């Protein structure tokens, strides 16, 4: 629906693009990627498939990339959470003549492996560093990194970045390992806070637990004491930022990571066009000033 059909190498309805990422479909972050992908596919009339292992498993992801290659799509969109493990399958896809776009993580691999394009925010570590600096500026001396996926490299890098960023202003960081269960998570944090009364800053690595954690802090009378940051956005987080309970959130505008690759790879299939430079979608820091404006978009799953 974009250009005159005559000039097309391939008709939109014949174009098929496959996403293989490490993000589970029911993760809040990746669901927005998927929404973007869906929107682009509806707009262009191309076919898209999204695939991700049910838990963090790069080997399974490699096998999925191989399966995608076998179904010979017109474009492949991947994230690269573990370069060593995914090198062979991604290179094989490339060798089979499939254009490959990298999203979210893996910018460093694009050039050396001869892949086509990167679409995404800054590296996890850079984002973490940024969050540490912001908290440091806000006067935080002792922060906690609430990690619901200990052992997952990208989450670990965020905490590492936070620790290094905060260290610049002399603060220190501890990691609290939690699960996605709201009761477990809030009780653990509560327990930690009780035995570490000096904690004055917190980073949440996702939005899933934001609501219960904020509620718990309110109940215990700790609400105003903490400077809180988060990754990603959700209506609850945005409300909290508006009302001053939270300081900021780091948004990678992952909607674009879903939308753009579809448009670009469809373009590649239909018109043989593709940008030459990486497309940066983030990080964008959302504070009180912007929070209200994006809230309704967040409710729709666009941000």
């Amino acid at each position: 629906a974009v250009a005159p059909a005559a000039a097309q190498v391939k008709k939109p309805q014949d174009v098929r693009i496959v996403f293989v990422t490490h993000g589970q479909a029911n993760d809040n972050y990746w669901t927005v990627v998927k929404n973007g992908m869906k929107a682009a596919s509806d707009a262009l009339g191309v076919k898209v498939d999204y695939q991700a292992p049910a838990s963090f498993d790069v080997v399974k992801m490699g096998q999925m990339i191989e399966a995608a290659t076998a179904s010979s799509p017109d474009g492949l969109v991947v994230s690269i959470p573990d370069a060593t493990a995914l090198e062979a399958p991604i290179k094989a896809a490339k060798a089979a003549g499939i254009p490959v776009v990298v999203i979210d993580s893996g910018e460093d691999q694009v050039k050396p492996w001869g892949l086509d394009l990167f679409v995404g925010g800054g590296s996890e570590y850079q984002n973490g560093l940024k969050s540490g600096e912001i908290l440091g500026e806000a006067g935080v001396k002792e922060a906690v990194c609430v990690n619901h996926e200990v052992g997952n490299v990208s989450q670990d890098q965020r905490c590492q970045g936070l620790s290094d960023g905060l260290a610049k202003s002399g603060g220190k960081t501890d990691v609290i390992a939690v699960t996605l269960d709201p009761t477990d998570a809030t009780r653990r944090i509560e327990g930690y806070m009780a035995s570490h009364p000096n904690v004055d800053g917190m980073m949440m690595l996702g939005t899933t637990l934001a609501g219960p954690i904020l509620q718990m802090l309110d109940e215990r009378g700790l609400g105003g004491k903490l400077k809180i940051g988060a990754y990603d956005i959700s209506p609850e987080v945005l409300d909290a930022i508006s009302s001053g309970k939270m300081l900021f959130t780091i948004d990678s505008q992952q909607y674009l990571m879903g939308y753009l690759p579809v448009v670009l790879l469809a373009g590649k299939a239909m018109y043989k066009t593709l940008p030459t430079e990486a497309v940066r979608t983030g990080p964008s820091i959302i504070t009180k000033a912007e929070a209200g404006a994006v809230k309704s978009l967040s409710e729709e799953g666009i941000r």
Partner: protein
Amino acid sequence: MTMGTAVPAEPHSPQMQPSRMRRLVSRALRRPELGALGATIFVFAAFGLTAGGSGLFSVLGITNFLQVSAQLGILAAAVALLMIGGEFDLSLGSMIGFSGIVIGLCVTEFGLPLWVGILAAFAAAVLVGTANGILVMRTNLPSFIVTLAGYFVLRGLSLAVTRTLTGRTQIPYITKGADEPFVIWLFGGKFATGLFQWLGNIGIIPLRPDGVPIVQGLPMSVAWWLAITALATWVLVRTRFGNWIFAVGGDLQAARNVGVPVARVKILLFIATACSAALFATIQVLEAGSADTLRGTQKEFEAVIAAVIGGNLLSGGYGSAIGAMFGSLVFGTVEMGIFYTGIDSDWFMVFLGLMVLIAVLFNNYVRRKATEGR
């Protein structure tokens, strides 16, 4: 030596007729929950030594691990009955997520009152439990594999339906507009608030700057936990149905042969388990105010752990609901207690594993001493 002498048979040799007192004691010692009680005492002693001063046993700390134990315990009580009946339910965790989503969608998408949403979740639970039970009984397949299908299907349905309707995987602000204080209190509120306020006033619980004690009461989940454990125990020990549960788990064929309606018993057990998941989900939704498609992950697993720590047999036919209660308490306390000991979070799992093992070994030791020693 070969040629013995015929001694007149004593009608009652004293060893064969232990006194009533000893019999009572021995009967108490035979109870399955005894070992779990031992393990509980052990765990408390261990943390008393290592984390005594860290606040684990402050009012806040106690409320804290009680809440974790209580939620797990609600599931564990039902799972214990199901295990005694000789079956598993892997779909438990997914059912939690699914129930939460049902409540959330009813309220936020269809604008129904909260209590209708909760009823809908329980109706879904009854349906799923019935399906599980009928499939298991009709096909003679192991419940492991039948409920595995539920495990995938329910989790998948939660995701697909939620994303189709809302475009997200989380449903926030479920309780926000609700004007049903009783329903919210019943599942997500606190009880004994007066007591806690008083404790705060006399200085036993620290007060917040605004004069409210930092712990305002015990979460309702604790009340539910106790109520459901009591109910399950009553059913097991005092009703025909309880008798049948032991029988179908102990020997299905023998139970059928003496006329126990085995299919009915097992189906009801699956329904009870699914309903405990719905209750768990309701409590979490009303406490947290939101639902998420990922809720309940691995709970089927934790509930079985708690039940087994509590002395329930995996192979069925033996166990108790009170044991499951102690099992949940052990698991919840260990999980939270390790936090207070200040162990680096990388080592958390190592200690969790060791503590669970030691608690169970202790449980076993106590039970063995009680039944065999002497």
